[in-house]
């Protein structure tokens, strides 16, 4: 068992989930409750990582992060190391790839709240902020938790993008999924098997949680 790789994956997944949580809530709420020009375009862009092959996403991110790109140059100036092949680059890539996993369940849970519920809160004298905190957030929390759980589990197992952007540097960018690949490449079946089993358990736990929370969304009947 490669605990360094496993710890790195946990750190990456945790960081991604924590950063995406507020973004997912803001973006998911906006997409569910508001109508604005270009909303369909935004939704399509958000879903893009779901349909593009991870290697393609990884390739574009690698180009965007590279020492020749403006972002890469800026990052090098500010932090003294390249964005590509670093943990920071991995986090950034992971954030982008996981956007749909975080935003979509949250958007669905906000969309499940009838517009009248929101309006009833306003007509009852609750400010928009109070209505959000006391009415919408409690109703949407199963979807929010589901978004976080799915993001976490998906990041734990992310392979293509991580390999392209991170390169598999031990202790920096070599996550458990890449370790599994390495072990399989060197025909170390038992090492790959143990780590795969661990990821499987993680994924099942996350899906179980999502399933359980999904049952709660819309269970209230007003």
């Amino acid at each position, binding site marked *: 068992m490669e605990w360094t790789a496993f710890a790195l994956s946990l750190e990456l997944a945790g960081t991604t989930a924590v950063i995406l949580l507020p973004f997912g809530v803001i973006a998911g709420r906006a997409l569910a409750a508001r109508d604005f020009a270009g909303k369909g375009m935004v939704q399509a862009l958000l879903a893009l990582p779901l349909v593009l092959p991870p290697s393609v996403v990884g390739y574009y991110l690698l180009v965007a992060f590279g020492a020749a790109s403006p972002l890469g140059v800026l990052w090098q100036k500010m932090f003294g190391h390249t964005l590509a092949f670093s943990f920071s680059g991995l986090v950034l890539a992971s954030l982008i790839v996981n956007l749909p996993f975080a935003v979509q369940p949250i958007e669905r849970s906000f969309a499940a709240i009838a517009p009248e519920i929101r309006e009833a809160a306003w007509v009852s004298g609750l400010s928009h902020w109070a209505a959000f905190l006391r*009415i919408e957030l409690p*109703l949407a929390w199963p979807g929010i938790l589901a978004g976080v759980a799915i993001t976490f589990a998906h990041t734990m197992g992310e392979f293509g993008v991580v390999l392209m952007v991170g390169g598999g540097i031990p202790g920096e960018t070599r996550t458990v999924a890449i370790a599994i690949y390495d072990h399989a490449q060197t025909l170390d079946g038992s090492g790959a098997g143990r780590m795969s089993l661990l990821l499987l358990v993680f994924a099942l736990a996350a899906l179980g949680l999502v399933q359980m929370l999904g049952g709660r969304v819309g269970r209230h009947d007003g």
Partner: protein
Amino acid sequence: MAEAAAWQETRGLVARLAESGPIPLDARLAVPAGELHALIGPSGSGKTTLLRALAGLYRPRAGTIACAGETWFDAARGHDLSPQRRRVGLVFQHYALFPHLSAADNVAAALGHVPRPARSAAARALLAQFGLAALAERLPATLSGGERQRVAVARALARDPALLLLDEPFAALDARTRRHLRQELAALRRRLSIPIILVTHDLEEAAALADRMTVLEHGRTLQTGTPAAIMTRPASAAVARVVDLQNLFAGETLGGGETPPETLIAWHGEIIRAAGRTNFPPGTAIAWTVPPAAITLHADAGPKDALPKGTANIIAGRIGEVAVLPGIARVVFLAGDGAAFVFPRPPPGAGPPLPRPGEAAAITFAADAVHVMPLTA
């Protein structure tokens, strides 16, 4: 705005709203405090839009809304109070209770003006007024439809509103609960000294509960008056259709006589006499109606001469259908060319025998029972 000032003194509501789109609106409402005013119209007539505009949930392009001496909305001045600042209670069609909060917390959520420690007790006191004291801790999903409606009304009143809006509050209930809650609303309105607006498409409900009602079609307020006035003397054929008036016919004016003042209408080869002069020039296409209760049936009609003298309107034909309902029978009479008149008769055993379908018959009705109105509003 002298009219508005007068209404405001009585803590009433005055609204004039207009826009050509996206939702056509051309509405005027004046509801004094203490009046229960029904907004009636077919679905898509703009009833709910009007209600939402009053609550501040929809912003029309033009118009003004003032209630209880305060201007809530004035498009020309760019003045638009948010729903939070309008002191309005709104009961949504499906109640829109907060599903994760107990009945008491639903009511307490609207008690923002009460100091926090007193809210829970105030919410319970309000629920108790609606006979819901025992259900204060229950979630909306565990309440019956009638109980939910009561919680929604309690929540709407929790703000101590200056205007109470009810959006089809009985639509989602079974008939028995509906009857019961209508009685409750009738009792409640006697305790409230604010304007109450009841949106409904149920004419019977409007007639039973409302002091006055306004008929709406395509966002336009067509007529305001007491339910009885609107149902017997609609301002136009459009109003008559909205209130589903029976015995509504199209005709053409022929001019009239002076003594007695009357209007003659050409209708399917007959001449219908309506009491009173109208302003329609001869040859105007009009609509006319006669209330079912004003129609007298003459079964086994012999020659026209055998009918009572002096009746203004006599129409010969045959019986179409006879429907016996609890406590009443309804007869459809077909005039010579098939135009149908509907009117009530006493049920079997309570009066003269009911006519049989197909039988030759005649009907008569007085000139002053005939109401003439323009075809278009």
